[in-house]
């Protein structure tokens, strides 16, 4: 019989945040870590960041490396669904075990206070009349802001491919473009826009929630006749192949977490909206969202193979032309002046030190290369300390260190030190 208590403590839970430190997923993971420990639901909780490609790299790594591990979870969400489509990721959220949806953020359509659009109806009239004349500003391509723009277009029977969406990278750039009136309308998360709406510099046309939010005088899309409900949700998933027992334990721990006092406090501090939905209900929700996101992104034209180089406008051609011109000119200048004398550019005083390679020069570089190869082979097989020690030893060797044994001792000491530094002090994982 397993212990009956729902509060059994998880030991050494690892939370994967498929993003660099500082973003929304990372914050979610770190708040979970904090709350789980504070509420006594788990001990020794750690957070690992696997950044890259809007979470799809983290997803692929999670599925590959954590299969069957009952002590690992990953933070996920709507943006990952979009990224799976745009990046044509070989793995999808169907490959992981859904645990629960945790939080959500609603999106707001807003215009600067001086905009001619007083209401959503004004705006939609102009949009329907000449879709291309309206520029929509928001976050990165294929992200939640663009998805909502596409859904609204679809709901008012304008082909989403005609949405003139300007993708800005990062919240700062899109917010300043919206505030500066550089785009006709801004689509962004409520949290980013709220201070400017209450301050009067922006006018909110609509919010994407199902009903009006308490304390906020913003009409919903739906009550203004646009049948769209949308949120940028975040969830937690477990690796494939875990036992039912592990799954039950994780689900119970998360359930206890979202009902704890520290979680409630954290939601308030971060202004996240509690959108807890567990088990099969969440799985069904995620499936429906996946279908919706895939369909709209296809309509918007992101992630399809057919759109190509030409869409980038003349920019790549400029770069290419520059490369050809300067490449030819460089070859000519080499021929005229010869290599080494062709002109010393911005350089340290010792610049000319790279001598014409001779046997004496290549030998240490070869030793260096051997060290690098051994490091790369060993790093994920034998662990970081061994691999880094090998690298250290070979590098020292390339530089004429003559005491193999003493070098080896130094090597192990230095790599153990580096491991402590990164893995323990900075909490950044090494193999």
């Amino acid at each position, binding site marked *: 019989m397993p212990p009956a208590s729902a509060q059994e403590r998880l030991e050494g839970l690892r939370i994967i945040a498929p993003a660099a430190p500082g973003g929304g997923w990372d914050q979610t993971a770190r708040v979970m870590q904090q709350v789980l420990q504070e509420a006594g639901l788990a001990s020794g909780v750690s957070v690992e960041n696997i950044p890259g490609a809007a979470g799809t790299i983290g997803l692929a790594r999670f599925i590959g490396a954590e299969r069957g591990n009952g002590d690992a979870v990953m933070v996920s969400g709507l943006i990952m669904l979009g990224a799976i489509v745009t990046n044509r990721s070989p793995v999808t959220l169907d490959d992981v075990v859904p645990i629960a949806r945790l939080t959500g953020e609603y999106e707001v359509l807003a215009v600067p206070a001086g905009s001619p659009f007083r209401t959503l109806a004004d705006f939609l009239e102009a949009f329907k009349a000449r879709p291309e004349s309206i520029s929509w500003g928001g976050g990165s391509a294929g992200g939640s802001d663009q998805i909502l723009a596409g859904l609204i277009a679809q709901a008012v029977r304008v082909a989403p491919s005609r949405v003139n969406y300007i993708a800005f990278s990062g919240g700062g750039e899109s917010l300043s473009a919206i505030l500066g009136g550089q785009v006709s309308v801004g689509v962004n998360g409520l949290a980013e826009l709220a201070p400017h709406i209450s301050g009067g510099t922006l006018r909110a046309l609509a919010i994407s929630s199902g009903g009006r939010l308490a304390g906020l005088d913003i009409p919903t899309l739906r009550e203004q006749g646009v049948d769209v409900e949308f949120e940028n949700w975040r969830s937690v998933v477990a690796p494939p192949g875990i036992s039912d027992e592990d799954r039950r334990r994780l689900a119970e721990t998360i359930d206890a977490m979202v009902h704890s006092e520290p979680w409630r406090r954290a939601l308030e501090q971060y202004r996240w909206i509690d959108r807890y939905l567990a088990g099969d209900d969440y799985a069904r929700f995620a499936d429906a969202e996946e279908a919706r996101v895939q369909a709209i992104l296809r309509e918007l034209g992101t992630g399809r193979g057919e759109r190509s180089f030409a869409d980038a406008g003349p920019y790549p051609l400029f770069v290419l032309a520059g*490369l050809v011109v300067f490449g030819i000119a460089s070859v000519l200048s080499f021929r005229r002046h010869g290599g080494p004398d*062709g002109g010393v550019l911005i350089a*340290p005083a010792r610049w000319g030190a790279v001598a014409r390679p001779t046997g004496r020069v290549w030998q240490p570089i070869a030793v260096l290369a051997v060290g690098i190869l051994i490091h790369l082979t060993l790093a994920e097989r034998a662990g970081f300390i061994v691999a880094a020690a090998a690298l250290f030893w070979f590098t020292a060797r390339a530089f004429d260190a003559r005491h193999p044994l003493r070098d080896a001792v130094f090597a192990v000491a230095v790599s153990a030190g580096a491991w402590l530094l990164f893995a323990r002090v900075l909490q950044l994982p090494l193999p």
Partner: protein
Amino acid sequence: MADLPLASIVAAAFGGVAWGIFGGALPGISPSITMALLLPLTFGLEATTAIVMLASTYVGAEYGGSIPGILIRTPGTNAAAATVVDGYALKEQGKAGEALGISLYSGFVGGLFGLTVLYLLTEPLSTVALAFTPAAYFALGMLGLSVIASLSRESLVRGLLAGVIGLMISTIGTDPVTGLNRFTFDSPELLSGIPPILVMVGVYAIAELMAQAGETGWQHAPRERARIRFPRPAVWKRIARPQAIGSVIGTFEGMMPGGGGAISSFIAYDQARRFSRHKEEFGKGSVEGIAAPEAANNTVACTALVPLLSLGIPSSNSAAVLLGGFLMHGLVPGPMLLVENGEVVNGLYLGLLAANIAMVVVGYLVMTPCLWLVGQPRPYLTAFIFALVVSGVYAVETSLFHVGVALVFGAVGYAMRYFKVPVLPMVLGVVLGFMVESNYRRALVLSDGDHMTFIQDRVSAGLLLVAVLFVIGSLLRHVRDRRTRHAGR
């Protein structure tokens, strides 16, 4: 002001700066990551203390990045890339201590200048960021790239070639406008593009390592004994101008989203050279070449708070982490913050003042161990640098693929040295490429494909004009130099 928890603010400033210098000095660990790693720790702190701690980390990291830049030719942060050139050249002349002293002192001057601007002018300057349209950002990027023309003194062609290669590298990854994948060769690791810091680690640190391995005769060179030296009065006078240039440029760059420390350092470096009486020393160990970029990137650490506090606009990744810190404590940066939470903002100003002082104190204290470290026997020192760089790259990217990328750029950097193609323009291209391309295309989408938008937008037109003037000026000098050289023969 009386109610502020002074003692805890000062303690937080010292703690934050120390942590920032540590994180910034580790190659690969950016200021934003250093700050984010501290976030969970600030969760339990009182709001003002927590925010001071994060802001101080930013201040510390901007200085910390220049330590490895000067000592081991590896910029710890993107913004320290411009410092590497003259900093490392000075180190090679046995003046590492002096270089570090100038960097620290210039960072302090820049920080104080930025803080003064922040304190006095936050409200009037808050709209500067909003005046920048995509066209203007494109022009700003071009201004940054125009630096290449004057950096490539003797072979303009190869400098431009390197710059274009840098721009090409920056197009790898996800298309900023359509979200499509380009040049990723179906490798998922390339989807996010190649982080500039990997290119820098490769072409600077690893290429340097390879070059040193190939050298002979260093065994007989005398051991360097660098001592810490703060700038003498004569040097003070000399670096006042580059510091002023750096501070002014840093002020504006800090306020613009997407600008940030790296661009400001490059432009400041270039401008300092333009206005210098000792142009010929640049690139060969000029004290001015350290003072300008270091003043600039520390000014940015303060002025980045202008749009953040007044509008809630984070102008860089580091500012975004700081924004997270505000939100975590229920504070919303924006127009109402200055009105409703004036005491937190005042506490922050005070904390930043303390942080700049702490930077000098802590910075001075860490110099001795750093100099001791680089005074070790060459085989162990280089092996240590290599192990540290590789672990830093791995720890941040958690993938061996990126370690491989850095090593490939090491080989590229070595080849470039051999063929005497300058690496700095390539680094500049990689750093600015994304900004130039994405804003060029955004501007065209907004203008319906009409290139006139770059001239009709006043800010853009002005910046482009300045860029063109820079390039023409550099070309004229180029021609003149060549003539005098021919005449001398």
